[in-house]
């Protein structure tokens, strides 16, 4: 509950923030703080300098790029995602999933950027953004680069955002007739996930990613291949998921053994794909 000493800075611009992150050893960005403050309370991991992004309005916008990509600033909160008309039009699954993250208070502070940068294997957004084909724009002193989800998520609490860099925005392709689904098992309603799965079905086929079964979202590529040209009946989806669990090496913990997680991965994938297929039909 009581934090170690830490230094705090509150830059007014993104460039200042990057400069601070690059200058000070052990500096970390502070977004909504709904994970990092908790971790600091336990004195588990401890940044030496916090660079608060609160004043960077540039990171708080939701809009569209010239080519129609939904662009979400890293400091956009879950509550903003829930209430955004742009998200509603372009990719409603984002609002739907955001509305189940933790609780009202956390959704008022927690940000999309924080969620992905923490890269906790139980977080909601990493697998979802993986299936949505999201892109991540990272800015550093030497410029800006944009990476895919596969490149972005490196490990537990590790992402492509290096020292002295900042995630500035996330790009999400609009639905364009695709159907999206999300399913899994949580500890209590809207609690931490034990296993989750995200699925997107479009003209290009199915994209499926699993959460909580590895350090980073795991793509169910075999299942995706089997679903190519599928009619997405329940039987065909179940058949495609067969063996998915066995291909995984999930962790065991107090909420479920590795075996239970393997099983849940199949169940969640089937449910997410079914939901996505249903929605695509309805779209």
């Amino acid at each position, binding site marked *: 509950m*009581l934090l170690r000493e830490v230094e705090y800075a509150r830059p007014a611009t993104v460039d200042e923030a990057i400069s601070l992150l690059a200058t000070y050893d052990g500096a970390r960005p502070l977004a909504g703080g709904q994970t990092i403050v908790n971790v600091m309370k*336990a004195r588990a991991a401890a940044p030496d300098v916090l660079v608060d992004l609160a004043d960077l309005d540039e990171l708080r916008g939701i809009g569209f790029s010239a080519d129609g990509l939904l662009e979400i600033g890293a400091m956009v909160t879950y509550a903003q995602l829930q209430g955004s008309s742009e998200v509603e039009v372009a990719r409603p699954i984002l609002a739907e999933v955001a509305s189940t993250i933790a609780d009202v208070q956390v959704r008022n502070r927690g940000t999309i950027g924080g969620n992905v940068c923490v890269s906790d294997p139980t977080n909601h957004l990493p697998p979802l953004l993986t299936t949505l084909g999201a892109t991540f724009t990272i800015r550093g002193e030497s410029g800006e680069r944009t990476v895919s989800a596969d490149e972005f998520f490196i490990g537990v609490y590790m992402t492509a955002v290096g020292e002295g860099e900042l995630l500035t925005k996330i790009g999400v392709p609009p639905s364009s007739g695709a159907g999206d689904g999300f399913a899994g098992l949580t500890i*209590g*309603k809207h609690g*931490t996930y034990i296993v989750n799965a995200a699925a997107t079905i479009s003209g290009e086929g199915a994209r499926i990613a699993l959460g909580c079964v590895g350090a980073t979202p795991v793509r169910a590529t075999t299942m995706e291949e089997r679903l190519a040209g599928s009619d997405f009946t329940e039987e065909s989806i179940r058949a495609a998921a067969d063996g998915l669990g066995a291909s995984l090496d999930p962790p065991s*913990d*107090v*909420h479920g053994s590795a075996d*239970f997680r393997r099983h*849940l991965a199949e169940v969640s994938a089937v449910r997410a794909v079914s939901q996505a297929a249903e929605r695509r039909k309805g779209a």
Partner: protein
Amino acid sequence: MTTVTEQPTTTLKRGYVGQSIPRREDKRLVQGLGTFFDDVRRHGMGYVHFVRSPYAHGKIISIDVSKALELDGVYGTLTGDEVAIHTDPFFEMSVEPGGNIKDYALAVGRVRHMGEPVAAVCAATRELARDAADLIEVEYDSLPVLVDAEESLKDEVVLHDEAGSNVVWSGVFDWGDVDQALAEADHVVKIDRLHFHRFSSTPLECAGALVEYDKGTGEWTLTCNHQMPGIGAIWMAPALRTGIDKLRFVTHDIGGGFGNKICLHPQYVVLCLMARKLGRPVQWTEWRTDQHTANAHGNERTFLDVEVAVKADGTMTGFKVKALDDCGAFPRYEPLGCIIWAQVTPGLYGWRNIRVDFTQVCTNKSPASPNRGYSRMQHLWLTERIIDIVATELGLDPVEVRKKNYVKAEQMPYETPNGCFYDSGDYAAALDIALDLIDYGSIEERRKEAASRGKLLGFGIGSTLDSGTNNFGQSTLLNPDLQFSGNNEAASVKLDIFGEVVVTLGTVPQGQGHETTAAQVVADILGCPPEQVNVRRGHDTWFNSHAGFSGTYASQFAFTGLGAVKGAAELVREDMVQLAAAVLQAPVEAIELADGFARIKDGPEEAALPFMALGAIVNANNAFLPPDFNPTLNHRYVCRPYFGMVDTEKKTGQLTLTYATQIHAAVVEIDPETGEVEIIDYAAVDDCGIRINPQIVEGQVHGATAHAIGAALSEEFVYDEDGTLLTANFYDYHVPHAMDMPPLKTGAMESPSPVAPLGAKGMGEGGGGGIHCLGAAIQNALAAAGNAIVYDSCNPPHRVWSMLQDPEATRANVEVVSK
């Protein structure tokens, strides 16, 4: 031949009693104006932080506090070595071997559970205290860890060398003739193993205290949240080598207790030593992770080799069982849990032949402590599991088998095989109310409909008793040398100079609404509106009326707490009547107290004295009263319920006084793919005799039900093999929130207690109804998918899923031998 003890009772005129008067505590609490211990500040006070063991079991090689002391703003430290010099080990209640255990306020030489306090440091701010704690270097040598009670029993590793064994207490309770019952049974149902898991009520406010030491008088004042200061002082004073009145416990508002705030004496002793050593007030606030890892877990209990005697018609005549209780690293309040369950030996059932071979052991886990439904809940879970397993195995209807075996209304008062008296109740009628509430008639139809959606629907009943008011004499069934028997509680009532009625309680409420219900009782007795009665908040052992075991625990406020209030109010009433008679020059019989006046019944309007006049006469204007007439309007009353002595040979006696009934019924749906259990219908029926304030009673029912639902579906303290608690916070130890809790339907009956002063029975603890009925409902749902037997009291998705995967593994636990 024992007879039911008749308590002296007078008929209470029911006016305010029986009404759902909104609580008077609320006005301050809804404005954030309550005073909890952490809200209190003192000039110059220091904050205490504990250094805690990361090991579950280890030798302490060295403790180096020097770096902590060098830090600016650090006032001082305390280690186990100093504690061992300045205090004596806490009093142990057990006979040997458990009685030989040496339990100090800080670990001395050895740590026995993760999170055990090893040293304490005091500093100018909370943050600094933790910084300093991080600088204290402790070197440990790890020792083999015991996290399994059955392993503990082998004594290959012994936690307490001075005891020489991990067994705290063991003994056999044998009532009736279970061997004969089994021999004469048509079916014997055998169950190898059932496990009642570890959890606790986790009150939202953690423990803590502000402790001040008066060097001149040697007195300590503890502004704290201890819920049973009586017992706290009994533990602490001898350990601190001081008199019991040198410890003044003060509580204001307490953020929930549920029994979990009874065993705070080790931490409080550290604070007392620290305050004395540093000569300044010291304050400690426990954090949630600390509460989970090192404060108060409910008793974990494994039931082995159960055998149940069943007649061809479904009548059960007895059972035997080996109970193995795991109390964690230190006994503290134990081994009382080895006997408290016996208050409800037969559960609600009429079986007369019961043998329980009870053993309690230590393990490298957090110490146990009383927890809502203390020790009875575990045993009631066993009886309910027996009923449902027998029903499943013999194809009996769970409703019919209960009605057949329940103690009948016409048998009340009913003497149990171990000499307790069930005072009143109609279990079958209460069950019918519960069944109505969940529309029992439609279960099969709903089951089909759920199946069409791929869900398994199940229905279950939990029938329990909440036994109210402890007879501490039952401790002598564990240790005949203990000088404990009976119980008592105190209260005082006075009429002040301006006509206000002032009440102080010996009890220590933590949300039970004592200020409100006590005012209702007093208002009825004195004939005034409850608003005229000021029940003082909180407790102060110096100024409140106080008795030996004062506190709020054991569902006893309705009996002893309100009994004391009633007694004191009646004494004041007598004074008032006599005074009014003298002043109004009327016979005593002609005086009535009503609407805040003492007046002559049917007399002229002016023949009335407002309470203010009575108060003023006695307190300020009494010279005219004759010398031999001295009404004080100021009385203390100690309510001592009569129990009689227990029989330590036969292990029988009246262990408690009132028995409130709870019948819970639930309908659940299981998602067979994930093991998730969803409660779709839930009813709780409570019969606690006269309800002083029905709304408060209903609130207690809701709360006890929520605790049981949490325990049944998610709350579990799980340790790994190294003794690390894996559910040390509210992420992994999931308590139900508003979306998890189903809407609850409640029903009530009133079977007045013939023994209690107000006909009201203690009822706050409930009996863990949700744990029993949800386990039964899960088993009922699983019947269609392999017929698994529910063997654990906690069934989160992973456990339900494994029962679905391998029902045979659970069925191998059960065997029926039919003749």
